[in-house]
């Protein structure tokens, strides 16, 4: 009898497993969404608690190190005087940039601010989860931006959460352009390097394009997902493909390396702009 019971149990488990594997995509997404939505409130509390703890720990560290702080501050005065001269030059540059920012603000993109509540449970994926979803107007395949530049794109979206595939994920592909030379290419995520920093590679750059390390890479606006001219990162090194037809460039995706707690999701679809 025991053998029979055990046998049926295992057959049941295998049948359940086969059923789960063969569920239609919409069912799977809904199932995952229920899990994520039900856990999001707890995750929000966890994020807020960890932020409060961090502030508390910083305050405690401040009381303990007053003497050390005093000597460091006097060193900082000398440093700041030198910086003041530098800043006067930067102020002029800033005015020019402000003009560009005003232009950017006049763009028609609607951005939805979201909080990063968690990262993916498995390190094989480079993704994070946001605290807003379909109810707040977020759709799949929308650009995710931070003040540092492009973060990635939305992937699975449930009622109250959205999964963001980071630029460093191999499944994230972006049509990119080197700002200085105007050379186009396709940027693909490459996970993390040996030092643990996220990396990406821009491929199919024209073999004669004079790209070099330190060049800025931005989105080209082609492809209908990402808005044009959003900073992706900086070129770390440049090489030639094996066949010698194209160049490639390894990129440090700035917004992913310095991922913030708050990011913005583009609410508009870029197709109309791309077609124009």
């Amino acid at each position, binding site marked *: 009898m025991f053998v029979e019971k*055990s046998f049926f*149990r295992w057959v049941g*488990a295998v049948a*359940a*497993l086969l059923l*789960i*594997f063969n*569920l239609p995509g919409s069912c*799977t997404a809904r*199932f*995952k969404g229920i*899990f*994520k939505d039900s*856990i999001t409130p*707890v*995750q929000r509390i*966890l*994020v807020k608690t*960890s932020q409060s703890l961090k502030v508390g720990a910083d305050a405690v560290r401040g009381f303990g190190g007053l003497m050390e702080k005093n000597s460091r501050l006097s060193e900082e005065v000398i440093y700041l005087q030198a910086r003041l001269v530098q800043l006067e030059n930067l102020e002029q540059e800033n005015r020019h940039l402000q003009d560009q920012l005003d232009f950017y603000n006049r763009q028609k993109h609607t951005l939805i601010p979201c909080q990063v509540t*968690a*990262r*993916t*449970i*498995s*390190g*094989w*994926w*480079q*993704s994070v*989860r946001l605290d807003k979803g379909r109810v707040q107007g977020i759709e799949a395949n929308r650009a995710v931006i931070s003040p540092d530049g492009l973060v990635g794109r939305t*992937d*699975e979206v449930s009622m109250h959460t959205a*999964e963001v*595939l980071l630029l460093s994920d*191999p*499944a994230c592909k972006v049509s990119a352009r080197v700002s200085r030379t105007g050379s186009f290419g396709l940027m693909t995520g490459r*996970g*993390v390097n*040996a*030092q*643990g*920093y996220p990396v990406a590679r821009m491929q199919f750059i024209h073999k004669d394009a004079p790209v070099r390390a330190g060049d800025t890479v931005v989105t080209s606006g082609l492809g209908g997902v990402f808005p044009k001219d959003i900073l992706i990162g900086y070129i770390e090194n440049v090489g030639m493909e094996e066949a010698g037809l194209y160049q490639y460039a390894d990129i440090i995706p700035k917004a992913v390396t310095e991922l913030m707690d708050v990011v913005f999701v583009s609410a508009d679809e870029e197709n109309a702009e791309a077609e124009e």
Partner: protein
Amino acid sequence: MSRRFITLILIIGTLLQTALPAWNAFGVLELPLLTGLIICIALHTDRTKMLYAAVLAGLLHDAFCPAPLGLSIPFFIGLGAGINWIRDEVFGDQPATYAVLGAVAVVLEVFYYALVFKLSGLRPVHGGLLALRLAGGLMAGALVVPLVSLMALQLRHLPSRNRRRFI
């Protein structure tokens, strides 16, 4: 361990695994909290509850990552069944047992996902990343799994202790 307790600790484990930072230096290796809990559950419960825990852990794991639903269930079932099978041969309450089982389990987990991803083409798997994750998995398994298991066992005794105090 009751089913309710198993569900609770697996949900807490999932929440913590998504909240705690991964080891970037070891190929973004996540802390193996769910694996640790499955080891603990397999050592302390019968086959039916182990099966329930393995399926739930697999579902929770896949719900919180972009992987297809059900991908992790065979690994957790295999791990649970294997440990359940040898549990009479090992000292179940020794931290060293958890450390050895944890190291082996996390290494097997890395191999399992690498194989599945390589065969299905879901993720690029290269030798360097695999070596990093294996080295990290060996350490993470040996360090994290004993802690997770001991904490789960302490939690299990908590309600009964409180009950006794109030009675």
